[in-house]
């Protein structure tokens, strides 16, 4: 048996899984260039770039995308701020009501989205609030707070208090200590939580569908137009998002490698590594 075969096995398996992961993406990209006659987009009927160009003059397509992005950015900012505050309180202070607070944060993650959405819908109806952009935003902030807290909390638990104590020994008050020592240390964690919140918000379908009224976000729009087959526009937008994400990651990676592994200042870095 030996190392020869097992050397091949793992990488081979990995390669196979990567193919599996990219299969629908490849199909999506391919069919974004299709030129279908009818509503179906399943057989190849001619290559065309038209879909990419016609997209920009179609507000019915670009509006949902812009809506999704706006909501994602706004809900991420708010949820991250609220969530960070909660995480700080939970990890660094003593107070009553810790148990109920934990429950309040954890249960939204376990409840089925159908009911999270439906319960909010009931709230809006009884208040007579019209559903639209703001109700979607409120709902997204709601479910994002939990994820931010959970992501940050364990990170904060491992925080080395001695650094802050050092700051205070040097006559910094609480606020300055927080600004100049604590915040920079936990910032990577905050960023990670924010990224998660953004991803969750932009891809949300179920909760959004209950709170949207007639407003369309990207996933809602995709679901709606794909009833009778996936129109090429959907594949075009998916491809564009994919390419942008790819470019973003590639740029980051490249910039990182160029900057090299600069050992930045010792203690004020990621904790615990």
């Amino acid at each position, binding site marked *: 048996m030996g190392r020869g075969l097992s050397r091949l096995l*793992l*990488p081979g398996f*990995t390669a196979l*899984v*990567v193919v*599996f*992961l*990219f*299969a*629908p*993406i490849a*199909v*999506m990209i391919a*069919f974004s260039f299709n030129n279908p006659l009818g509503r179906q987009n*399943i057989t190849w009927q001619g290559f065309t770039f038209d879909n990419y160009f016609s997209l920009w003059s179609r507000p019915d397509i670009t509006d949902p995308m812009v809506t999704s992005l706006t909501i994602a950015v706004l809900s991420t900012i708010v949820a991250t701020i*609220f*969530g960070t*505050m*909660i995480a*700080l*309180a939970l990890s660094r*202070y003593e*107070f009553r009501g810790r148990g109920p607070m934990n429950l*309040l*944060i954890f*249960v*939204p993650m*376990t*409840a*089925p989205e*159908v*009911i*999270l959405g*439906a*319960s*909010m819908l*009931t*709230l809006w109806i009884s208040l007579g609030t019209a559903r639209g952009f703001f109700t979607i935003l*409120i*709902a997204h*902030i709601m479910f994002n*707070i939990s994820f931010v807290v959970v992501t940050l909390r*364990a990170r904060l*638990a491992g925080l080395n208090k001695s650094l802050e104590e050092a700051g205070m020994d040097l006559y910094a008050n609480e606020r300055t200590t927080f600004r100049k020592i604590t915040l920079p240390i936990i910032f990577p964690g905050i960023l990670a939580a924010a990224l998660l919140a953004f*991803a969750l918000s*932009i*891809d949300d*379908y179920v909760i959004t569908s209950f709170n949207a009224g007639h407003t369309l976000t990207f*996933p809602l729009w*995709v*679901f709606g137009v*794909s009833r009778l087959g*996936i129109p090429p526009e*959907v*594949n075009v937008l*998916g491809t564009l*998002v*994919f390419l942008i*994400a790819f470019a973003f990651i590639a740029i980051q*990676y490249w910039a990182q490698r160029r900057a090299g592994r600069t050992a930045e200042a010792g203690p004020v870095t990621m904790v615990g590594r």
Partner: protein
Amino acid sequence: MRRLTPYLLLLPGGAWLLVFFAIPMGFMLTQSLAQGTVDTGFNLTWNFGIYPDVIGQYWELFVRSAGYALATTVLTLLIGYPMAYTIAFHGGRLKNALLLIVVLPFFVSFVIRTLNWRMILSDNGILFGTLKHLGILDPTFHFLATPASVIFGLTYNFLPFMILPLYVAIEKIDRRLIEAATDLFASRRQAFWRVTFPLSVPGVVAGSLLTFIPAVGDFINAQIIGAANPQVIMIGNIIQFKYLIRNDYPAAAALAFVLVAGVLLLVAIYGRAVGTERLTS
């Protein structure tokens, strides 16, 4: 002032969750105990009997949904662990790039990915059409609308939720521990099962929770890939039907709370089994 700080910090987020989660959910809870119709209104009759009713009627679907979620968790673990291991241990300088490549497809909306899978997996589509043409598959073979296909869809969609935590746990294992094991005449297999795997368990736990919990309540895969076939629909589909079409809010709410309770119970059992500190992830 110091005393107040924690409460002030908790206030905005806590209030938000209270108003937009706890109160609506509380209202849904009371609605589960009500009776009536949507046109004539619902009256709170403290109808606790609805809970045994819906459990009795739909316990099979609860079991089925849990089963699918469990299968999904196991499959993502079986696929994800070697992936994470390979990238962490054999990735070398390309580690980060490989991880990003693995996660890249999931930047595209899951609705688009699932719809495209349905197209790929259609009876005479790209995959099966070719195989049938080559005579490898029986012409009557179909994959869509079977339990296997729904689990397939769930596995695909939840794979990154398993791979990421696994990768983090495996990656930070100190290689010197493994070296030490082999120095002490452990075989590679022993070194893996006695050193590597146990150290990666926190990742396994985190990944399992992140996969199982949302998978249980999923209904999109059963709808798109499963074609809402009666044999494969999950409890989420029923809750959706009851709420949106049948407008039977009490039953829908009751089903939802049974689901939440069931999930919390399973999580608690799991936590006992693996040690509760590991759950704080």
